[in-house]
């Protein structure tokens, strides 16, 4: 194999590129990424970067030495528009193309948008999504204009972190969640209730069980009488209107597979892969948020980093010789509380608090099925969490 192209220059793509070199690939390595930045870390974007505790330099995933060690050709600010794996080409914007023997797909995910204005119609200013450094910078600048009424649409982890950061900055924050309770799919009712309680603990209003009917905009924004179409409020499906100066839409992501539509690859909520991250074509692997590995698509930092080594091993071997031992793990920091979760729970698994208490916002809960622990949730209990996580990794 003489040339390999990694598409997506972020966490999973970078770890795959590193793995290619450490596993002995010495051919041409090309890394294509549509963002202009070198790989950086996303988790702080909703946490320290938004509050100002973390600056842009601290987000970098590579320094000059790392980049030199990779000996790669970087095509940054460049979008891959199509893949012809059989013919061995990746098409790039600007009518360019790259010949390649194999491809690592690491294009991640893109925020879902509210069913909004017609295409071509400008969206309201003051409405944000949060995925990229540029998104985070725009939100940070908007929040720096002065105390604002912030409405966060979506009470998932990223929504909750944004709400927490905005509250810490002194803004007046409301979280709108369509489901009766946020985070139920991830944590189950009981534990979701505890986590949802964090909002109220810190003066953030949670409006749950009602959807968003639409956004209102106009010239009513006090500081900026001339700004023509700044968002002014969020209309809810129950008829209520929440006044808003800043709106953050955090209603989930969809895998970035648009560019693969005509590739012949099997796509189904992500690039369909076996347990070794190998796609329906043997010279194409997928890693990170874009990959549906053995029926599961994770959107977690650790999955992206862990999958890379396995995917590369299989790519270089020309077939699946290794599989990814998948124990999903994620963490979230909100309101000064660290939440960590590992395992794979079914909705019927029963959580049991084994140390600490929910009232103190410091506890460890094990999810149990037929007397077996299937997953573990820690709120401000990192030490026992790590032990449990190890235990679960051993037993799965």
């Amino acid at each position: 194999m003489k040339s390999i192209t990694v598409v997506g220059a972020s966490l999973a793509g970078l770890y795959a590129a590193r793995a290619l070199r450490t596993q002995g690939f010495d051919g041409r390595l090309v890394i294509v990424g549509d963002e202009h930045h070198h790989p950086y870390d996303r988790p702080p974007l909703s946490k320290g970067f938004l509050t100002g505790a973390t600056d842009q330099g601290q987000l970098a995933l590579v320094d000059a030495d790392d980049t030199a060690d990779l000996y790669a050709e970087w095509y940054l600010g460049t979008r891959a528009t199509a893949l012809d794996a059989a013919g061995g080409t990746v098409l790039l914007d600007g009518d360019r193309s790259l010949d390649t023997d194999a491809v690592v797909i690491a294009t991640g995910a893109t925020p879902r948008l509210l069913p909004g204005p017609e295409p071509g119609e400008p969206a309201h200013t003051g409405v944000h999504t949060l995925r990229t450094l540029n998104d985070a910078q725009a939100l940070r600048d908007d929040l720096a204009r002065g105390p604002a009424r912030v409405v966060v649409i979506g009470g998932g982890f990223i929504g909750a972190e944004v709400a927490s950061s905005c509250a810490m900055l002194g803004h007046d924050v409301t979280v709108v969640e369509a489901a009766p309770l946020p985070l139920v799919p991830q944590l189950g009712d009981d534990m979701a209730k505890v986590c949802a309680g964090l909002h109220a603990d810190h003066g953030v209003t949670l409006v749950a069980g009602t959807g968003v009917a639409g956004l209102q905009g106009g010239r009513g924004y006090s500081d900026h009488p001339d700004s023509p179409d700044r968002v002014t409020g969020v209309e809810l499906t129950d008829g209520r209107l929440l006044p808003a100066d800043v709106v953050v839409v955090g209603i989930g992501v969809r895998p970035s597979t648009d560019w693969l539509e005509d590739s012949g690859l099997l796509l189904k909520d992500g690039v369909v892969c076996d347990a070794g991250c190998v796609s329906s074509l043997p010279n194409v692997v997928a890693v990170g948020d874009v990959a549906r590995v053995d029926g599961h698509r994770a959107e977690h930092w650790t999955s992206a980093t862990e999958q890379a080594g396995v995917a590369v091993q299989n790519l270089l071997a020309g077939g699946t010789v290794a599989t990814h031992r998948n124990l999903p793990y994620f963490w979230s920091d909100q309101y000064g509380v660290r939440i960590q979760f590992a395992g794979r729970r079914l909705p019927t698994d029963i959580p049991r608090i084994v140390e600490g208490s929910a009232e103190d916002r410091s506890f460890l809960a094990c999810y149990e099925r037929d007397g077996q622990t299937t997953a573990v949730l820690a709120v401000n209990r990192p030490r026992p969490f790590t032990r449990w996580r190890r235990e679960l990794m051993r037993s799965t």
Partner: protein
Amino acid sequence: MITVCLIDDLPPGESIRVTDGVPAPVAVFHTEEGEIYAIDDTCTHQDASLSDGFLEGCFVECPLHEAFFDLRSGRPTCPPAKQPVRTHQVSVESGRVLLHVSVAEPA
């Protein structure tokens, strides 16, 4: 010099976080092999306390993103951490764990 605790209160495999009398928190480990080591407690990657990490031989795994640090040198052995943590002198005298905090730059 700081008295951290009695050695009996820090059995092999355990760690303790020291915050009093030190410029920055320090993590003290007693390995299964019986060695005692002290390093800066805060991971050089992001915000995690290494005393909460998983001890494996004379290495500790960060509880947040699993960087490994060598307790002897303070150096990380794998990403995402790149910078070493400072190491500190620690000794056991008359059953007490004593910490001599260094102000030197990390190795």
